[in-house]
């Protein structure tokens, strides 16, 4: 089902990209304290890789149809070794592996993702208002 306005199609794609990004950030923040034994890999942060949607159907050649999630990439799984001898997962030296997730970076990204999501929603509203105005051409 194609959108009546290619602006709506672009917004539809953009909204799902930012929603996926918010899901990834939520996943990272929820797992910021996921501890693993020193011998295993740490929890790797999830990153969303987006790409532009360039196929046609849009207004003019050169104008694409928004963005799309190409794949989800994983950050470094090395983590940090922390000294915590009382922990059930601690090995002989008392070290455990915690993920290397920077909360500041995640919170900043979350604000950016949320604002981008809202910006896409306002594009939808503007496109709808323009469409309804076009429908009223010629009416008394």
């Amino acid at each position, binding site marked *: *089902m194609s959108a009546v*306005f290619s602006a*709506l199609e672009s917004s*539809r794609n953009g*909204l*799902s990209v930012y929603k996926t990004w918010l899901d990834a950030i939520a996943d990272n923040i929820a797992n910021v304290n996921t501890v693993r034994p020193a011998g295993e890999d740490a929890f790797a942060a999830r990153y969303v890789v987006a790409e532009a949607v360039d196929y046609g159907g849009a207004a003019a050649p050169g104008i694409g149809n928004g963005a799309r999630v190409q794949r989800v990439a994983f950050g470094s799984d090395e983590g940090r070794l922390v000294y915590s001898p009382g922990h059930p997962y601690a090995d002989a030296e008392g070290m455990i592996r915690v993920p290397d997730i920077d909360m500041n970076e995640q919170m900043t990204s979350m604000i950016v993702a949320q604002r981008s999501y809202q910006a896409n929603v306002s594009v939808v509203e503007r496109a709808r208002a323009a469409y*309804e105005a076009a*429908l009223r051409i010629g009416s008394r």
Partner: protein
Amino acid sequence: MQDLALGALHGALRGLSARQRVMADNVANVETPKFLASQVDFEDSLREAIAGGDPLGGLQVTSRHSLAPTGPNGNNVSLDEEMLGLVDTGLRYQLAVEGMNAKYRLLRTAMGR
């Protein structure tokens, strides 16, 4: 009193209102476990019916389950898709209604009222 354009717009109104009902149903069930979203398809059938000369009689509005991947509780409704689809369907519905109004206005003018 029927011509091709009026019949096509009438058929579009039928298909679009079915689509709106199904989308509202999907949105209501966005958290229901094991619920599969449905999708209404009528454009291809309408195109064929128009080519055959009988837009209303040849139109078949079909509904099938969406093949989108399901989440952890078996639900595959995507809220963004459904909400945007409701906007899109609503605008198309307004366009079809405006089209029928314009056509009837033309007929009234030609009749002299």
